[in-house]
């Protein structure tokens, strides 16, 4: 097995764990962590493709994309955490009440 394939497979597993977590977890923080794990999977997938075609040096485009993606993901996660914190302060709830 090529080394990039290990990364690609890991990225797929992380993505699925995250996706499952978003729907299965009830606690706000767990849901937010699940989206971060999903993001980690996607970024790893991008980076593993950069390594695959590398003969002498890695493809720089995926790295540029991943940097942007991480910025977006961090901002979203921070926003989600702020919302969750505010909801907890106002109502004391830690999960969606009528969760489906």
């Amino acid at each position: 097995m090529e080394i990039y394939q290990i990364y690609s497979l890991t990225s797929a597993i992380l993505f699925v764990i995250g996706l499952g977590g978003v729907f299965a977890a009830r606690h706000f923080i767990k849901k937010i962590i699940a989206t971060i794990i999903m993001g980690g999977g996607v970024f790893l997938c991008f980076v593993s493709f950069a390594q695959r075609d590398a003969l002498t040096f890695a493809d720089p485009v995926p790295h540029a994309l991943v940097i942007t993606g991480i910025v977006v993901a961090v901002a979203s996660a921070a926003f989600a955490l702020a919302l969750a914190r505010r909801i907890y302060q106002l109502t004391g709830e830690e999960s969606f009440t009528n969760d489906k």
Partner: protein
Amino acid sequence: MTELPISPYPALLVGLPILMATLSLFFRTRGEALVGLIGALLTTGLAIMAFVEVVQRGAVIHILGGWEPPLGILLRMDPLAAVFIGMTALVGVFISLYAWRYFRALETTTGGLPLFWPLWLFLWAGLNGLFLSNDLFNLFVTIEVIGICAVALAVLSGKSTALSAGLRYLLAAITGSMAYLFGVALIYGSTGTLDLGLLGQVLEPGTTTTFALLVITLGLMIKMAGFPFHFWLPPAHSSALAPVSALLSALVVKGAFYILLRLWMEVFGVSLTYAAGQFIGIAGAIAVIWGSWQAFMQTSLKLIVAHSSVAQLGYLLMVFPLLILAPGVTADSADWLSSAWTAGIYQVISHAFAKASFFLSAGIIIMALGHDRIESLRDLVGHMRITAMAIGIAGVSLIGLPPSGGFMAKWMLLKGIFLSGQWWWAPVVLAGSLLTAGYVFMLLRLAFAPAREKEPFRPVPKSLEVFALLLALGSFLIVFPADSLIQFLESSEVFGTGVESILKGGVHGNN
């Protein structure tokens, strides 16, 4: 790509709202609203000028900072993008005018909620950027800008129900964009490019492409609240403030639809299969029936309108099966495709006008009554004639009675359904209209019914009612330029390559 004429408009359409949004942050409540409103008016003027430019010169491009792709970003404004930008501007300017008056009226109780204007202008910049984007990653960035601004707007009131709905919305949005990005990674891995035009030529049908198509479609369906991922929409849209609900339902969800339409037409043409189309169509059909039924069962006005969005977005999903012919069926002309395609776009435009008007009217009623339980709508006609009229007109467009924009959309959808031989979608369209008529007439019956007890209707600024009515009228007026608008859309490059690749894709997908 570089042979297209270069124009400054695409860059200005993104840059100007960002500039005005940033500028408005330097002012206090009143000043900020003024700067925000000026920004909205300027952006509308610019959008109209850009629209005229595309009508005269055809598709135009702008290369940001002179950096050629793939390193730089290329913005392309073709007729499809021009129509969406024009729609955003027209709906946006009325919502802006409404919002200006609305927040003035609320100033005494809430302090005017100062963050509305910068967030709305950033959202507008994101929407324009989305419509102008020409590569998969740029689409991701713009849809994230839209998503974060939209959630921030949705929680503006700071109430716990809005916050909880907003968090649900944000989690759905993040999940959707991560799924979309995963698909983008797979496509980049297999082709080495992100450019939409180039991808349409080089993308080979195969397992990777099919899987990428699947995750991208799922991600975008979560973002546009397609069944069964609609659960976040009704609470988020109904708990937001009136101008925000109007923006969210009229414009924000359409962004994801725009990406999905462009990707299916332009990029995935060769790898689309009949089954994929039918699958997404079934999701749309269930959304139409289920959403309309839920709307019918609600007892508060904003929840009715929000559930009705789920149904109306279902019609948009029903366009996708019509893009692919059944196995064994061959077509020698693209008539059916043209009907289906324009049906989708007409549905987007008429829903944008009608739903914005509906939510703005709901905002007026909440302002007058302090709540939006529908039994209090009794004798609405006696108290607020203009608002009752706006609800009636917008409702007629949602049902799809002639001569409204909604009728045009549903008529062309039915035409596409019969021309492509997929007759089984037709009953869904009709049943959806019938259910829509159910809840619209329920509202109108109450509006005309005599009041049982005296409910206090507080006076509401007349201009608010007029803006809501103008938007409702807009959903009728868009019918008149229909012929030239359809011709304009068909001159779009997306449509040309879409027809070609779909006619070709029929062979690939079905053999």
